[in-house]
C-alpha cells in the first residue's frame, strides 16, 4: 500500500492503495466516482475512458502510480450541470439505450472535439473505435458528435 495524492476533477484526493491498482478501481472503489465503468479491464471496450491531461485514456490499464500530478477528469467532472456540449448533444439525439457504455463514449468524444473541433466522419470513427456499444447506438453517437461539433 502507498499513499497517492491525485488531482481529480479539479480537486486533490488522497488514496492509500496498492501501487498497481488501476485508476478505474481507485475511482470506483475508493473515491465513489462510479460514472467510469468497467467493461473489459484490458483496454478493449472504452467503458472506463477518462481524460488524463485532456487525452482520452483507458482507466482500467492506467495504474495509480503512473498518474503523478496529471489532471484527471471523469464523467462526473466533465461539466457542473451536465451541460457540456457533448452531453447536450447526446440528450438532443437521444443516444443511450442501456446507457452503460455512454460515459466512456462521451469522454472519448469530448477529448476528440477538444483537439479537433470539426472532425470528418472517418476521424470520428477512428477516434471512437475503441469504444464498444453493445446496444448498437453507433449511428446516433456519430450524429451527436457532429451536432456537438457544430454547437
Amino acid at each position, binding site marked *: 500500500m502507498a499513499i497517492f495524492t491525485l488531482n481529480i476533477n479539479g480537486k486533490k484526493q488522497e488514496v492509500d492503495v496498492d501501487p498497481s491498482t488501476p485508476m478505474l478501481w481507485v475511482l470506483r472503489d475508493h473515491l465513489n466516482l462510479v460514472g467510469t*465503468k468497467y*467493461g473489459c479491464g484490458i483496454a478493449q471496450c472504452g467503458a472506463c475512458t477518462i481524460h488524463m491531461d485532456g487525452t482520452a485514456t483507458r482507466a482500467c490499464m492506467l495504474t495509480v502510480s503512473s498518474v503523478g500530478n496529471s489532471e484527471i477528469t471523469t464523467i462526473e467532472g466533465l*461539466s457542473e450541470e*451536465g451541460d457540456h456540449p457533448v*452531453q447536450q448533444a447526446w*440528450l438532443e439525439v437521444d443516444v443511450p*439505450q442501456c446507457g452503460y457504455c455512454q460515459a466512456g463514449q462521451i469522454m472519448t468524444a469530448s477529448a476528440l472535439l477538444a483537439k479537433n473541433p470539426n472532425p470528418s466522419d472517418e476521424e470520428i470513427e477512428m477516434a471512437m473505435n475503441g469504444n464498444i456499444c*453493445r*446496444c*448498437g447506438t453507433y449511428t446516433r453517437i456519430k450524429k451527436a458528435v457532429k451536432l456537438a461539433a457544430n454547437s
Partner: protein
Amino acid sequence: MTLVKTKIGRRAFIRNTGLASGGLVIGFSWLASCKMTPEQVSSLPKEWFELNGFLKVGDNGMVTIMSPNPEIGQNIKTAMPMIVAEELDVAWKNVIVEQAPLNTDIFTRQLAGGSQSIRQGWESLRMAGATAKQMLKEAAAQAWGVSANEITTKEGILSHEASGNSAGYGEMASAAASIEVPEEVQLKETKDFSIIGTETKNVDGKKIVTGQPLYGLDVYKEGMLTAMIVHPPAFGMTYKGMNADTVKSMPGIKDVFHFEVYPEGIEKQWSDQGGIPELVAIVGDSTWECMQAKKALEVEWEQTSKAESTAYHEEELLALLEKPTETPARKDGDVEAAFKNAAKIVESTYSAPYLAHNTMEPMNFFAHVTPEKAELLGPIQTPEFAEKTVAARLGMPVEKIDIMMTRMGGGFGRRLYGPFVIEAAVISQKMNAPIKLVYTREDDMTQGTYRPSYKVKYKAGLDADGNLIAWHVRGAGTNDSLIFEDRFPAGAVDNYLAEKHSLNTNVTTGAWRAPRSNFIAGAEQAFMDEVAEASGKDPIEFRLELFDRAINNPVGDPKKNDYDPERYAGVLKLVKEKSDWANSNGKARGVSAYFCHDSYVAQVLDLEDGGGDMPRVEKVFCAVDCGIVINPLGAKNQIEGGIIDGVGHSTFSAMSFNDGKPEQSNFDRYRLIRHSEAPKNIEVHFVDNGIDPTGLGEPSLPPVVAALSNALYKATGRRYYNQPFINERPPLVG
C-alpha cells in the same frame, strides 16, 4: 370513443389506494389485461396480478407515474408512462417518471423479456390513465353541480363549457381521491392521441450522460465487501480441490472458500438455467485485490462429463441434418413426390456459432443476508423466480427474501437467468456481511448460457414456370430444436416438410435476443433469395407471390400459420417503395423480411462500393409493422440497435471451444462490431395501422442477417452460408 370494461374485473387491478397525503393515487397492474395463453397465465405467480404501477396526481397538478419495470435499455421506462399520460390527458412536461420502490409489499415486479413489456401493458396502462381522468371529472362535476359527461379535459385542465367552469387537475385531485373507482371508462380513439406517437426523450437521459450511479455494479454500501467467483475452466468439469492458504493471506483478502450453489435436492426454477453447481468464492475489501487473488489462486478441477470441442458440435449437428426425424414438426402434401417432378431443385446448408451475450455491464449482484432477512439488489429480469431459489437455498421463507432491481447495462436475454443472484446470497450468508458479487469480463464470457450453435438444411423445388412447389427444412441446434414449423413459407407451399433436431451438449445455452429467429431468419431469407434467383424472378416479387398464395389460397389450416401474410407483404411493399428497389444505383443490395415477436420487419440493405472483401454497409432501409408506435424516437433507437447487432454478430462474432474450454474470454478475441464497421445510415419507416403495439426490442435483428448476406452475394458473387461471415474470406470476387 371506446367504452372498455376489463375482462378480469376492474377492482382486481385498479384501486384508489389512498396512500398519499393530498392528491389522487391510483394503483394498477399492467399485466392484468394482457392477452396470454392459459398456460402462460397459470405459470405466472399470482402476485403479478396485484398492483405494481402507481399514478399520482398531486395538488400542484404534477403527475407522477411510478413504474416498477426494470429498464434494460428497451426504453420502456419512457414509453409506458407515455401511455398512461395519454389517457389521463396531461401535458408530458408535467409528468415525472419514477422508479417504483420495489421493496414494499405493494409493488410486485416484472419480467422484461421477449419484447413483451409494451404489448402486455398496453390495455392496463391506458385504463389506469383513463380511470384517473374519469375520477377527476366526477370530482369536478360534483364541485360544479354539473354532469361529468359534459366535462372535457385537455392537457391537465378540466372544463365545463356551458357553465364556464374550469380547473387544473391539481385542484380536483384531493376531491377525486374520495370518488369510487368507475366500472367502465372511455379510451381515446387512436386518431386523438397527442402523446403516443410523439418523439419523446429517454426519461433517464440526463442521469446517464452525467454518470449517475444507476447500475448494479454501481452499488456500494456501508461495510460492503467485494466477492468474485472462480468457475470451472471448461464445460464438463467439476470442483476437486484447492489450496487457498497462500491466497488467503494476500492483501485485502477476507476469505476464499469452495461452496455449493445448487446442492442436491434444491428445487430449481427455469431462471436457474446455466447455473454451475459448485464454485470457489474470493471475498475481499476491493475489486482489484480480489482480481489479484483470483489470478494467483490455483484450483483443481476434474473432467466429469465429455470435453466437447467446436469440431465435435459441428460434426454432430451435420450428422443430424442427414437424419430424418420420426415425426415431422409439420407436413403438408408430399415433398418427395414434388421433388421428383420439380424442374429445378435448390439445396443449401447454413450455420452459425455459439454467441455470448456480452452485456456491457457484466453480471453482478449485491446481497446482504442476515438471520432475519435477505436483501438483494442488482440487475435481474426474473426476480420472482430467483427469490424462490434464494429462499430454498438459504433455508429462509420467501417473505424474508427481498430482491430489488437496478437499471441494467444490457440484457439480450442474459439477465433472464440469475444463478449469480443465488451465488451472491450464499456468499453473503457465509460471510455474514453485505457483499457485491462481481463477474470479471472473463467470468461473464466463459461461464456459458450462450446462444446455441445451429445448422439448417433447406431444399426447394420449382416447377417449369418457376413456381415454388416444394420446401423442405431440417434444422438442428445445440440444446435447441431451432425450427418454427408454422412460420413462412408454411401455408404458401403445397408440399412442405419441417423437421427439427436438438443435440444435447454440456455447453450451457439460453435465450439470446430474438431466440432462434436470430439465426433461422437469416438462413431462411438467404435461401429464399437463392430460390428466387433460380426461379428467374425478382426476390421481392417472388416473396409477394408467396404471400398472395397464403392470403388467397392458404395451404392447410390458415389458423395454424403464426403469421399474417397481409402484414408481412405490407412491410415488403413499404420497403420496396422507400428504398426505390428497382434503382439500386449500382449498389450491391439485398432484401429480407421476417416476422417474430408479433412484429413484421422488411429490410433493403446497400453495401458501399469497393470496400474490399468485407464491404461496409452503407444504408439499411427498414420497414416495421409493430402496431401503434408509442415513442418513435425510442422505437427507432431499438430498431437501429437491432440492425447493428445483427450485422455485427453475423459478420464478426463467435464463441468456440477446445476440449470444453471457451477459446474467447474477452473483447480481444471475441470480436464485436465497432464504430467504423457499423452501417453508415439506417432509415426506419413504420406502417401506420392502429393495431395494438407489439415487440420492438428484437424483430429488426433477425432479418438483417439475410439482407446482408444477400447483398454480399451481389457484391462478391459468392453466397455466405456460414457465420461469422468474416471467416468466409477470401470471397470469389467477380
